[in-house]
């Protein structure tokens, strides 16, 4: 099957407008005849469900949480980008487009990214109209800040809780539609299979997580907006329930899975504390606006710190290695995430890590300079031109508290250390997955009628995601792209009529799910689901993590295949099928992670280059920077499912054409 990206012809800046002008429409009186299923109600899903409900379609929305308000989008901290140029610092649609393409290491589609930049400003307008309380200047206008990989201030934010406020905004729009009866919400439901009829997506099989009932739901189109798959690593910044199940089930039904090896490792997370750790916590990237990242210059200092004999505050200024400022003077601490992550790993691998536990991993994020600078600024602003050191520090801490208070508090709760007094310890952790279900320009997967939005698709971030761009993509897809492109597909469906859930395809899919449940519950093995998940996570982090190489990837592929076999033989799932059974839920998810993990390693193995979040040891320059191979690897790698043996999956290549941007080495120096 040939991949058709359906990118419209014509000049870049007119593609989306022209495309919209020619998309087919569904008349308002015909929309109530059409059913749409939306799986997942984070930023992409909730905004899509709300918008489609608003248009008049019958929408059924599903989430596994007890309320759509809990989707993991809520945890995003730093902000959302938009090319508003409110700060008059040279921002424009083109700049946002350019930064995103470059940030993604030239592995994203130009047309998609330009559309994202085009609608970005409108997202802010929409959210403000909904009552999202963004940060404001004293004059009442919106405030902005800067993020990694960017030299303008285009990030809109609400303290360190931007994701929360945007999600609650989308949730309020969704709630309104639920109240009006246009969206029917299914909380605590999990999609466990896709139903295809005559090759088209026609419904899903879902499990009611409270009663255990297996339900059949039909629709004329299905939207998957179920987020990313970072939890394949067990430890990540993802919520515990984040999983790949919906995406993986449609993959098994024929949707290609693109660039699975592209995983973003976020540089500013709290380091691992020990073996009982269940997940990792991110500290917003916005902290890099004010914090300076360093490790000791001398190895003996690092050793003394790890042994608990020295405190970071005792290291003199000249004995600190501000390695990002040293290596990347133009961007300094604000280099993109993949660059910052690898630089931290490089220092720790070289023996300069500062964490005093078994890992020895960790670098400092230090606010002492900013406290002094801002304290002085504030004192001057108050008319005090001769402030004492004490006053400066007091005012500086107040300034920091206003800007990042909740993040500092969160850090202190977790680590029991006060980041106002001593530098934060940070280390990279798995955060966001740029890979996902392959979609065309209309966000349709290779299954007709099955659309994929937000983190679940692969489309806009290339090999690396810049900060504050995930929220932007989720809302762009849901509010402003899908309403047009789904309607184009549904224009052919107005005469279809209700789709019966008694069709044999529904019965077959239901049987697949019930058989799997039966197998898990009757397996009577000896090991818990978590045991296998942790094993998988170890393999993934060590061999398909921040740096990969051919030998490690080959080993990983074999080890994961073996682990999967063992899992199905030896997993123990307690409880029964007709009740709330979290272990059963996890078993389904881990079964899928075991297959996906293997595919991630295969994808990483075939990509013989380094780009963005994918770093192969064999392909780096003399200074340890990524070495892309544009001649051979300027493509999207989309995998086709070929049955249970993941090794048989077939790779399809969608060539990436750069017509409007000149490809260059990605340089942040």
């Amino acid at each position, binding site marked *: 099957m040939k991949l058709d990206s359906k990118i419209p012809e014509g000049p870049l800046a007119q593609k989306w407008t022209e495309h919209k002008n020619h998309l087919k429409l569904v008349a308002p009186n015909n929309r109530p005849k059409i059913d749409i299923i939306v799986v997942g109600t984070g930023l992409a899903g909730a905004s899509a469900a*709300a918008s489609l409900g608003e248009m008049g379609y019958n929408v059924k929305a599903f989430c596994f949480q007890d*309320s759509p308000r809990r989707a993991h989008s809520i945890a995003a901290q730093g902000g959302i980008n938009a090319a508003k140029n409110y700060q008059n610092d040279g921002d424009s649609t083109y700049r946002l487009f350019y930064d995103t393409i470059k940030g993604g290491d030239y592995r994203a589609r130009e047309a998609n990214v330009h559309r994202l930049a085009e609608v970005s400003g409108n997202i802010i307008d929409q959210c*403000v109209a909904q009552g999202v*309380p963004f940060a404001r200047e004293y004059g009442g206008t*919106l405030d902005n800040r800067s993020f990694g990989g960017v030299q303008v201030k285009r990030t809109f934010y609400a303290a360190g809780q931007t994701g929360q406020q945007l999600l609650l905004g989308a949730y309020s729009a969704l709630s309104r539609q639920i109240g009006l009866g246009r969206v029917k919400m299914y909380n605590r439901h999990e999609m466990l299979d896709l139903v295809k009829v005559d090759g088209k997506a026609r419904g899903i099989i879902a499990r009611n997580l409270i009663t255990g009932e297996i339900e059949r739901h039909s629709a004329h189109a299905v939207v998957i907006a179920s987020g990313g798959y970072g939890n394949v690593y067990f430890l990540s910044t993802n*919520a515990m329930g984040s999983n790949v199940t919906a995406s993986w089930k449609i993959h098994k039904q024929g949707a290609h899975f693109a660039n699975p090896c592209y995983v973003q490792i976020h540089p500013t997370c709290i380091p691992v504390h020990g073996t009982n750790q269940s997940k990792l*916590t991110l500290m917003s990237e916005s902290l890099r606006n004010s914090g300076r990242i360093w490790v000791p210059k001398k190895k003996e200092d690092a050793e003394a710190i790890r042994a608990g004999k020295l405190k970071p505050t005792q290291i003199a200024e000249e004995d600190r290695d501000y390695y990002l400022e040293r290596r990347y003077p133009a961007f300094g601490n604000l280099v993109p995430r993949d660059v910052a992550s690898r630089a931290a790993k490089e220092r720790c691998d070289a023996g300069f890590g500062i964490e005093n536990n078994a890992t020895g991993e960790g670098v400092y994020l230090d606010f002492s300079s900013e406290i002094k600078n801002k304290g002085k600024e504030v004192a001057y602003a108050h008319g005090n031109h001769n402030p004492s050191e004490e006053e400066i520090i007091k005012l500086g801490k107040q300034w920091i508290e206003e800007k990042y208070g909740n993040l500092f508090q969160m850090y202190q709760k977790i680590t029991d250390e006060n980041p106002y007094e001593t530098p934060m310890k940070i280390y990279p952790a798995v955060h966001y997955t740029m890979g996902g279900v392959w979609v065309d320009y209309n966000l349709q997967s290779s299954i007709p009628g099955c659309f994929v939005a937000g983190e679940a698709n692969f489309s806009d971030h290339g090999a690396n995601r810049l900060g504050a761009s995930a929220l932007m993509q989720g809302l762009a897809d849901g509010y402003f792209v899908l309403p047009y492109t789904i309607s184009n597909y549904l224009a052919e469906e107005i005469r279809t009529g209700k789709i019966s859930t008694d069709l044999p395809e529904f019965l077959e899919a239901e049987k697949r799910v019930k058989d799997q449940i039966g197998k898990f519950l009757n397996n009577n093995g000896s090991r*818990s689901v978590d045991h296998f998940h942790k094993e998988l996570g170890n393999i993934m982090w060590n061999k398909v993590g921040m740096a990969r190489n051919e030998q490690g990837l080959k080993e990983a592929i074999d080890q994961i295949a073996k682990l999967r076999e063992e899992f199905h033989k030896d997993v*123990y799932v307690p409880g029964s099928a007709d009740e709330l059974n979290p272990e059963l839920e996890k078993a389904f998810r881990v079964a899928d992670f075991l297959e996906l993990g293997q595919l991630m390693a295969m994808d990483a193995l075939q990509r013989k280059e380094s780009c963005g979040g994918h770093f192969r040891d064999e392909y780096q320059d003399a200074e340890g920077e990524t070495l892309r191979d544009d001649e051979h690897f300027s493509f999207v790698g989309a995998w086709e499912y070929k049955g249970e043996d993941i090794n048989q999956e077939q790779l399809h290549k969608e060539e990436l054409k750069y017509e409007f941007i000149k490809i260059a080495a990605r340089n942040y120096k």
Partner: protein
Amino acid sequence: MASKSININLKVWRQKNAKANGAMETYKLDDVSTDSSFLEMLDQLNEQLVTEKKEPVAFDHDCREGICGMCSLFINGRAHGPETGITTCQLHMRSFKDGDTIYIEPWRSKAFPVVKDLVVDRSAFDRIQQAGGFVSVNTSGNTIDANSIPVPKQDADKAFEAAACIGCGACVATCKNGSAMLFVGAKVSQYALLPQGQVEATDRVMNMVRQMDEEGFGNCTNTGACEIECPKGISLENIARMNREFLKASTK
């Protein structure tokens, strides 16, 4: 992070489902790292139970970063445990001592029926929001430029502080009346403080309060326990603001 291990005794509420009777069960758990979060301690308990082929304890949790509002738990008689200003996922075992006995119960309120063990049904909150917790703006993108709705910084900050509510339900669980006034007050306040929320202010507060009463939440007697136990420090001021909005709406 000076880590050490402690041994603890747990008294955990076990209840098969909403209709079944529940009871406290006793468990002993050894080698709990003081760096573990409270939920990681429960993971450890569940791993132990699964290994012994017993049913693990069901509890709600998801982001484990204090923001999704999914985790709950009454711990030693307090919502989200002994510390203030945090959710259960942000509570760490360093708050407990070796040999401690810890009581763990679900949120208890008529409007939050128990689903299983420590899991309760908080969908009443969703229904309150569906009754009016929004601005009725079309999701068409045909809105005016964001900066043409200026908002004084002080108002935006206050609206944000109210909007920071995570909907965990600690306020209800800890209130002797099972009142949801802090939750509803926070939502009403967010929109009452912003220009975008003015048009529908009357209907919003009337509808949300009506729905809150229908769900079986109790009334507010200004005890203030909700504010103390709120992990996000949502202030009682929001209840006062809701009452003013309600009075204004009722006398229109």
